[in-house]
């Protein structure tokens, strides 16, 4: 039974798995001592969850035929809110229990803010029928702007130790962020594969109008998907600020390109309707290997930009060519079939 699931995952992502193994083998051969160490793998495992959760948000929106460009800004704003609560509200000589209460409040407030941001996106896209690209470009600026205003563009540093565990703690040899990430991936997989909403999302992504006529509440579904994407960004923000022990407006802006790259690399169709969590996770690991390799090789951020940008375009081209080929061969089959019937 379990074997069947693995086989399915393999068959759905054959090219990606091939790419992942190639990258892994190449890095292991050329940088064996620095790449193949427990420390490097642990550091990669702490980095994946941050932008992995953001990418999952983008993926969910894309599955429905939309896109969410505001994930980084949402994470930024909710991180700032949590940071403000933890640095401004906790009294000087607070007891352990009091600190715990404020940390808990900060977490709830951050997630609440993230969900509220998602709600704004969802209402504008779903009920006011504004295009998702324009909406989330707008809210991207808006949320970032709120963060800049409430912090006056200054960084906030120094959180209680209890909170730092979220981004830096270990359970056995596993970093705590990785555990959160795995839990979230299970959560999202269940939503996508086992609930009515998951099916509706794919149907809306394939054909919005048909979904509407099939009596699916398209508007509400958009609200739900952006709520979910906001929630994931909120979780990501907690890991992010806890890992670097600070929050600053504008932090993580380079993640936008990376999240979209990962989603496209993971085989999610930007036109909507098709995409698998397994593909996304394999793409995340592949990209993290590449990032780790380019960090070891000391590439400048500009070269990294060239690499991710061109990778994005190349993957899109390959997807487009293969999709074209499939539809052509499909067409041939259909024509032959039709010819057979006529005869």
């Amino acid at each position, binding site marked *: 039974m379990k074997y069947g699931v693995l086989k399915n995952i393999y068959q759905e992502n054959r090219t990606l798995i091939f790419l992942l193994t190639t990258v892994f083998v190449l890095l292991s051969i050329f940088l064996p001592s620095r790449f193949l160490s427990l420390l490097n793998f642990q550091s990669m495992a702490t980095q994946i969850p941050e932008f992995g959760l953001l990418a999952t948000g983008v993926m969910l929106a894309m599955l429905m035929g939309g896109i969410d460009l505001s994930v980084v800004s949402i994470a930024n704003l909710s991180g700032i809110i949590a940071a403000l609560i933890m640095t401004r509200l906790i009294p000087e000589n607070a007891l352990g229990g009091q600190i715990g209460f404020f940390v808990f409040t900060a977490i709830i407030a951050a997630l609440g803010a993230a969900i509220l941001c998602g709600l704004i996106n969802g209402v504008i896209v779903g009920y006011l*029928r504004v295009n998702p690209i324009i909406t989330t470009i707008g809210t991207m600026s808006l949320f970032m702007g709120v963060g*800049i205003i409430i912090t006056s563009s200054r960084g906030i540093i120094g959180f209680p130790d209890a909170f730092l565990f979220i981004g830096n703690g270990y359970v056995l040899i596993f970093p705590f962020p990785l555990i959160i990430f795995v839990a979230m991936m299970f959560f999202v997989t269940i939503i996508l594969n086992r609930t009515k909403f998951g099916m509706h999302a794919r149907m809306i992504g394939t054909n919005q109008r048909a979904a509407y006529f099939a009596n699916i509440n398209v508007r509400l579904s958009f609200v739900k998907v952006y709520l979910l994407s906001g929630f994931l960004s909120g979780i990501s923000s907690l890991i992010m600020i806890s890992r670097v022990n600070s929050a600053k407006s504008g932090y993580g802006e380079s993640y936008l390109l990376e999240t979209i790259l990962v989603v496209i690399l993971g085989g999610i169709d930007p036109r909507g309707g098709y995409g698998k969590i397994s593909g996304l996770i394999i793409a995340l690991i592949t990209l993290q290997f590449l990032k780790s390799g380019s960090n070891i090789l000391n590439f400048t951020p500009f070269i990294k930009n060239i690499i991710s940008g061109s990778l994005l*375009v190349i993957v899109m081209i390959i997807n487009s060519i293969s999709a074209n080929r499939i539809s052509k061969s499909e067409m041939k089959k259909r024509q032959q079939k039709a010819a057979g019937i006529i005869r």
Partner: protein
Amino acid sequence: MDNKLTQYFKRISKKTESYLILFLIFYILLMSFVSDSFLTLINFFDLGKNASGMAILALGAFVVLLSGGIDLSFTAIAVSGQYISAKILLSVGVDNLLFAFALSCSIGIFLGFINGYLISRFKLQTLITTLGTLSVFHGALLTIFGTAPINASQLPQCIIEFGKATIFRIVREDGSSYGLSVFVLFVIGVVILTWFILRFTMLGRGIYVIGGNEEAARRTGFNVDSIKLFIYSYVGFLAGIMGVINGALIRFIDPTEIVGREINVIAAVVLGGASITGGKGSILGTLLGVFIISILNDNLVLIGLSSFWQRFFVGVIILAGAILTAVQSEEKKLIR
């Protein structure tokens, strides 16, 4: 008579431009109460000079939106054109403005052509493609040509002169004078060119049709691929012009500048009533959008807000513009 008048108002109330003009009048009145220096000729001349680069980029972004796409890479193209042409001018030792424009524009057209080729040949999503090429172009520029800025003392003389040149000057009583920058002529030129292409050529009609329905455009015999090639090359061309103008404006060429401002430009275009679903919007609306955004950004401090509010307002403007346009379009209500 009365009926005609109400009909006229009904028609006008459906246009985004009339709301923009109302807003502008209201804002200008408000500002002239707040500050004495606001409603002066010199302030508006300055405004025109500062906004001209953005206006040129916005017209390019407008044409892309009209065709149902979106371009994020034009800022990287502008900065490439600006920096590479200035470097070549300095290393060759030629001090000629025309040469600078020719270089910058051809670099722009080349990079824009790459965008257009990728998008039309492989039918890629415009947003994701140009997000990718944005970082490729900018990363390549900074890797190949370095990150050292060129300051006013090193800059070719022709670019400095160009920044100071005016169409006409007004002499004050105390002998000092001020004038309207020649940059405005470039904006007018680009406006006329874009208007002519959109209004009177088959190409322009094609851009509208692609924006409305790409498949329909293909079946009616428009060469969709070459129209797209043209659109993105045209954006590159305009970005090349903007690059030189921006260098002359601030008398400082920094290869890390300009990139990041694409959101402001898109905000202006969206506020002007253009919709990414294509086929909608006007040049007048775009120019009004640019004007409003520059006036707002320039005068934030005057109405008592710090510059930290800038990003926030850009977001508000995009959403307000997009929601206004979406609510106005009635046909879309049928879909869901």
